[in-house]
C-alpha cells in the first residue's frame, strides 16, 4: 500500500516537471505544427545478467538492471539489483527495486530520488523493507560511471552505497570493466545482516565482447569482503566474510 502511494507521488512529480516547459521558440498560427517536436526516449538494460560461481557456497543468478523513460532533463528510472541463489529452495531476492524520479542537474549528473523495496521477488521467503532513496548518478571526470545513493528505510535505518565502473577499451569491441561497490550503514539492521559502519566492499573485473552495441557476453571474477559489525553478524550465522568467485553473463541493452 505504502509503495502505491509513493508511486503515485513520484509519478505526479514527474508529470508536473514534464509539463513545466518553456514556451516555444515561435508563435506560429494555430493549427501549424511545431517545427521541432521533442519526443521522450527510453531504454532498458541489464548492465549485468550473470551466473556467479563462488569459490565456496552456492551458485547464483545475479542481475543489475536499470531502465529509464523521459526527456533530456526529467526522467523516470527503474533500477533493480538482486540474485537467485541456486538450490537453496528460496525464491529470488531483490536486493533493491527502485522507482526514481531523475533530473539532470549538471552536464554529467542526475539527481535521483524515489522509493525502493528489498525482499522476495514472488514470495515472502526473504525479509522485506521499503525505503526512500536519494542519489546522484553520472560520470565522474576520467569517465568513471558512478552511482551514489542514500537510503532511509521504513524502520528509520540509514545506509549509503557507492558504485563505480570504468570501461577500458582493448579493441573496438573487446573491453575490460573494473567495478566496485561499497556499502555503509549508520545503524544496525540485524535481520538484513547489516551492521553500523562500513558493511562491505565488492570489486570485480569483467572482460566483455560487444557482439553488437546491445549484446555483450562477458566473463569475470569478483572479490568481496565484509567489515566491522556486518562481518560479526555474518560470522555469528556461520558464514564466511570474504569470498571470491567467477561469473559469466551478458550485458543486454534494449
Amino acid at each position, binding site marked *: 500500500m505504502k509503495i502505491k502511494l509513493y508511486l503515485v507521488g513520484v509519478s505526479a512529480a514527474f508529470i508536473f516537471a514534464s509539463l513545466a516547459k518553456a*514556451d516555444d521558440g515561435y*508563435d506560429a498560427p494555430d493549427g501549424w*505544427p511545431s*517545427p521541432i517536436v521533442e519526443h521522450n*526516449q527510453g531504454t532498458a538494460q541489464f548492465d549485468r545478467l550473470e551466473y556467479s560461481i563462488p569459490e565456496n557456497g552456492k551458485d547464483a543468478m545475479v542481475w543489475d538492471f536499470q531502465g529509464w523513460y523521459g526527456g533530456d532533463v526529467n526522467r523516470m528510472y527503474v533500477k533493480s539489483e538482486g540474485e537467485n541463489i541456486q538450490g537453496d529452495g528460496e525464491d529470488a531476492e531483490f536486493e533493491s527495486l527502485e522507482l526514481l524520479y531523475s533530473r539532470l542537474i549538471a*552536464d554529467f549528473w542526475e539527481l535521483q530520488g524515489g522509493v525502493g523495496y528489498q525482499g522476495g521477488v514472488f514470495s515472502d521467503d526473504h525479509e522485506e523493507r521499503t525505503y526512500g532513496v536519494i542519489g546522484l548518478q553520472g560520470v*565522474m571526470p576520467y*569517465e568513471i560511471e558512478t552511482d551514489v545513493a542514500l537510503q532511509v528505510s521504513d524502520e528509520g535505518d540509514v545506509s549509503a552505497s557507492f558504485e563505480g565502473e570504468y570501461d577500458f577499451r582493448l579493441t573496438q569491441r573487446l573491453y575490460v570493466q573494473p567495478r566496485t561497490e561499497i556499502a555503509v550503514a549508520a545503524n544496525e539492521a540485524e535481520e538484513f545482516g547489516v551492521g553500523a559502519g562500513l558493511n562491505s566492499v565488492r570489486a570485480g573485473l569483467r572482460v566483455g565482447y560487444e557482439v553488437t552495441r546491445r549484446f555483450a557476453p562477458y566473463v569475470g571474477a569478483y572479490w568481496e569482503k565484509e567489515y566491522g559489525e556486518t562481518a560479526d553478524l555474518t560470522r555469528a550465522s556461520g558464514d564466511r566474510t570474504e569470498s571470491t568467485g567467477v561469473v559469466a553473463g551478458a550485458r543486454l541493452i534494449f
Partner: protein
Amino acid sequence: MARSPVVSRPFSRRQVLKGGVALGLGSAAALGLSPAWANPWGRSARSTTYSYESEEGPSVSLSIRRESLPVAGQEARPITINGTSPGPLIRLKEGQDAVLRVTNLLEESTSIHWHGMILPPGMDGVPGVSFAGIAPGETFTYRFPVRQNGTYWYHSHSGLQEQLGHVGPLIIDAAEPERFRYDREHVLLLTDWTFENPASVFRNLKTMEGFYNFQERTVADFFADVRRQGFSDTVEMRQMWSKMRMSSRDIADVTGSTYSYLLNGHSPEENWNALFKAGERVRLRVINGSAMSYFDVRIPGLKMTVVAADGQPVQPVPVDEFRIGVAETYDVLVSPEDDQAYTIFAESLDRSGYARATLAPREGMQADIPKRRRIADRGMEGMAAGAMGGMQGMDHSAMSGGGMESMDHAGMSGDDMESMDHSNMSGGDMESMDHGNSDGMSKEKAKTRENGMLVAGEAQPGSRYGQAGIGIDPDERRVLVYRDLKAFAPWPDRRGPWRELELHLTGNMERYMWSFDGKKFSEVNGPIHFEKDERLRLILINDTMMEHPIHLHGMWMELENGQGELIPRKHTLNVKPGERVSALITADAEGSWAFHCHLLYHMEAGMFRVVQVS
C-alpha cells in the same frame, strides 16, 4: 504512373523510350534504378535539356511516396519523388516564375524546402515556420520568382524524412552567360543512407553515447602513441580528454557503421559513371545532401577549379581537394585530357567510409580507389571548446605550456596548433595570451572602428578560415579553405554592420542535446529578431567539439573571411570546433525563417531557432 508490384519503376515508358533513343541504349536495365537525371552523359552545354528527363521549370509536378527500391543493392524503403530516390533534378531558369506542385502520397505530413533559394516566406517549405506542411493526400503549390542562378538542392523539412532520401538537386540556369565556360556538366549529389529507421538512429544517439563510433581509441592506440611521443606526453594527453569525459575520436555522430555513402543514389560498389570526352571541360555541381556526413572530395589525377560556392560564383580557385559540409554546394571545373578513368572520391570526415563514382570516357571503366586516411584525433581546439561549453572552470593549466607541448607531439598537423590560441579566445579567459604575441592582433585592432566593431569583411579573431579542418594535411595537397572564397564583385548592400548578434553553438555530447546559447528550441521564448532592412553581423561561436553547418533560410550570409568587399555569400556556414565565424546579413526578407544546424539529428535535438524579420 503504373506501379509494378515488385519494384516500382523509376521511369515511365515514355521516359525510357526517349532516353533510349537519345543515348542509343537498349533498355532501362542498363540504367539501373538511378534517378533519371543521374545520366552518365550528364548534360552537354550545347543542348538545352538533359539527355534524360529532368523536371524542367517553370512548371513542375512532384509526387512524394514511400516505396520499395533497392539501395546499395539491398531492398529498402526510401521516400521517392516522382519514383526515384534521391528525387529528380529540377531545372529552373533565372527570371522564371516557378510553379512547383507537390503532392503528398505518404501517410504522414511532408514538405519541400528549396535550399538556398531567396523566396517569399510562405514558399520556404518549413512546417510550422513558413506553412502548415503538406497533409497526406494534399497538393501544395509553391510559387516564387527565380532571381538567382547556380547549384542548389531541395529536401524535406519534416521530421527525419531527409534521412529517407527525400532530397534532390535544384539547378538554376543563369539568364546571362556565366563567367566560365564548360562543355559538359554533371550533378554529383552526396547522400548518406541507412537501412535503420531514422527514429532508431536518433534513439541510439540519445540513449547511448558513441553508439556508431567504432574508431574509438584503444589500448593499442595508447601504446602506439607512447612509442611515438613518449609515455608522459601520451598519459598527459589521454588524461586531459578522460578528465573532460570526452572522446578525441568523436568526429562524426553517425558513421559508416550504419551509413552507405551514396553518390547520385549509388553505392561505391555500384560505381556510378560520369562520362566525358577527352579534352572536354566538365562542370561538376557537387551537392552535399547528407543528413549527417561531411565529405572530403577529390579526383586523383585531376586539378579541380572551384568556381562557385553555395550556388554563388567565386573567383576560380584551383585545388586538389575540398571539404564539403552538410548542405553546402560547390561547383568545380575539371579538364580531363586523357582517355582514361578517374575516381571521384568523397571520403567521410571520420574516414569510416566513402562515396565514389568514376569519371570516364566510356561506361564500365574504373580507376584506382585511393586508400582512406586514418581517423584523426581531435586537437586542442576541441578541448578548448569542451572547456568553454560544459565545464566552465576547466583547468587552463592543462592548456598552458605543458599541455601545448604534448599536443604538438600528438600527431596533429601544425594547423591545429595555430588554431589553439584562437579557439581559446572565444572563452575570453586566454585572450591576453594572444594579445601578447600576435602581430595580427594589433593589425586587426587598427582596423577596428570607433564603435568597437571590425570593418565589414574582416575576419574575426578566432576564425580559422585558413584551415580546412580536422583530418586534413595541408602539406599533402592543395585543399580549399574558406579564405580562398572571393566574390567577383561586391554584393549590392555595401553598408557596414549596424549591430552584432552573437550566438553560441552549444551541446551536451553525453545526452545528445544540441542548442544555441545553451537552449534547445523547446526552451527558448520567441524568435530571434532581425529589424527589417537592418545590416547585421551574425557572429557564431562554436563551443562544442564538433563541426556544425549553420543554415539561415531566406537571406544570404556574407561570410567575412577577410576578402574585404569581395566576400563570398553562402546559405550554409561550416563552423569548426572552437571557431568564431561572422557573416553580414541584410535583413530584407520580412517574415519568419528557420535558422538551424543542418546536421539532421542536431536539428531534431533542438539546434533550431526561428528568425523573425519585422
